[in-house]
């Protein structure tokens, strides 16, 4: 069972052009900043948006605009879990869950719904109205409501973002378990890298309506291909042109990089590999730039120092080093990066 989709949507000032495939048994997370078109993509797959392109699920064509084919949302067997759950406020928890069963004419809707709710640990909340539920309970009810109809495709929109931070970790573990027991295609969208890393077997990074990168989470963060991914991985990412052992980046600065190869590349520098000095250091490193500190942010005992210079970089140093060097906004510093610490890969 697989999902194959090519979704193109054009609206005032907004464009989405995504090709996507996902197989049963894997959880695919579409990750991107707000406004990237993630929710629109999800809604298009569910049949709730006008789109161009095609969607195939388990061999069944759900959408093919070249042939004018559109299977309406109610006949797609796609379970959609909205960001803020969208439980029917006038129906009890039991009736919310039984809704899909009744709509599809399944017998024993109440009994089935009750069984699912029991399994989800919500057996004592069946008669409650949604407004009486906690955020975590509402999230679980929304998921059960989608799963009980046994859809072929499960679509989750920011499943954890509406929850209180204190319960997120717990709900995330629960969600991981429930996702693992669902056999269909699992697709979730999120802007939260942590959520994506924790839940997904595969990441699809969406920016400005386009897929900029996809792959296993560790592959994606190891070789970011966009500013968004670089930021979430917490690394410096430069774009440039490689000539053997150096890369020309913006401002015609030459960056020494061991084995950079040839052609357009991304150059990745981990902040820990950026050393800072108050005076120009002597010695062999070839990547030496002068700049001044733009900002200092502490994370635990590590401190990230943003430096503005010919090549803007973030350096990660210890608190002791900040004290010793007397670093604060405006301080003049020298940045040094060894050529072996720059990893370059084709753009």
């Amino acid at each position, binding site marked *: 069972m697989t999902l194959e989709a090519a979704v193109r949507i054009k609206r005032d000032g907004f464009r989405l052009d995504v090709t996507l495939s996902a197989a049963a048994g894997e959880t695919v997370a579409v990750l991107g900043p707000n406004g990237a078109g993630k929710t629109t993509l999800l809604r298009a797959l569910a049949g709730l948006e006008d789109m161009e392109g095609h969607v195939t699920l388990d061999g069944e064509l759900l959408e093919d605009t070249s042939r004018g084919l559109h299977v*309406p949302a109610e006949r797609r067997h796609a379970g959609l879990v909205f960001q803020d759950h*969208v439980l*029917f406020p006038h129906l009890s928890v039991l009736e919310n869950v039984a809704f*899909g069963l009744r*709509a599809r004419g399944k017998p024993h809707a109440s009994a089935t719904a009750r069984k699912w709710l029991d399994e989800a640990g919500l057996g004592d909340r069946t008669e409650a109205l949604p407004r009486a539920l906690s955020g975590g309970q509402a999230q679980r009810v929304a998921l059960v409501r989608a799963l009980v*109809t046994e859809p072929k495709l499960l679509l989750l929109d920011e499943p954890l973002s509406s929850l209180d931070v204190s319960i997120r970790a717990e709900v995330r573990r629960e969600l991981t378990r429930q996702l693992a027991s669902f056999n269909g295609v699992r697709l979730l969208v999120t802007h939260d890298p942590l959520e994506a890393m924790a839940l997904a077997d595969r990441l699809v990074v969406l920016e400005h309506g386009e897929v900029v990168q996809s792959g296993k989470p560790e592959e994606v963060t190891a070789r970011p291909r966009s500013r968004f991914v670089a930021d979430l991985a917490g690394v410096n990412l430069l774009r440039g042109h490689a000539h053997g052992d150096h890369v020309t980046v913006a401002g015609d600065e030459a960056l020494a990089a061991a084995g950079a190869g040839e052609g357009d590349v991304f150059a990745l520098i981990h902040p820990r590999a950026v050393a800072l000095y108050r005076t120009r250091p002597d010695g062999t490193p070839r990547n030496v730039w002068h700049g001044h500190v733009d900002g200092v942010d502490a994370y635990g005992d590590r401190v990230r120092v943003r430096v503005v210079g010919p090549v803007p970089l973030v350096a990660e140093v210890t608190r002791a080093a900040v004290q010793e060097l007397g670093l604060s906004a405006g301080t003049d510093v020298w940045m040094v990066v060894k050529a072996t610490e720059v990893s370059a890969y084709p753009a």
Partner: protein
Amino acid sequence: MRRARVPAAIGILAALGLLLFLLPLAGLIVRAPWSQTLAELTDPTTTTALGLSIFCSLSATAIALVLGVPLAMILARTRGTLRNILRALTTLPMVLPPVVGGVALLLAFGRRGLVGSLLYQWSGIQIPFTTAAAVMAETFVAMPFLVIAVEAGLRSLDQRYEEAARSLGAGYWRVFTRVTLPLLRPAIFSGAVLCWARALGEFGATITFAGNFPGRTQTVPIAVYLALETKPEAAITLSLILLVVSIAILVGLRDRWLGV
């Protein structure tokens, strides 16, 4: 929670506004010939008019629900010029003097009216002077109140509830009856109450289009108007009865509709 203090000026104006409602009511209650009330209550003119009024206003509200909710749905879906035109047409009876509305109804559904003439030729049925005409007049005048309320309710309704229902496999009618209508219940209820209250008090369009005949088209407002000339005490009593009945129906309906 501690709210900001309300300035005295607001309080005074609000009190004046309230007095404008309260004083006429007090006038009715103080001047009411209480000793005659029971006699008036059992007077056939009163009971007939009251029964007719309740029948007509509830019928008008029922028709307004059946026709007005779909109309509100269309209005809520349309955009731009078409919507403005539809809206203006729908709200026309709200600004039209009811007597003019009655004349307009005559010109449309009267024996020589645009549609009424065809009806009369084919079937010999004449709408004016019938109870049906009273119901039509009340519907004409009162339905906009329902349409406006339901349209506002639809516009503020989160469409994702309907989308969630669809994604769960519900077709159009199931979504409409199990999700849209229940979620619209407060808007429909308040719209229906406004509509019913307007229908109950309707006078101008009814007397113009339906005329006045006890038991057929003489609703309470018309009976009150006629009684006011000959026996004002009866008019006051009748008005008070109307007041009590409307409050009773309002409270009763509220419990039934909004009782959870």
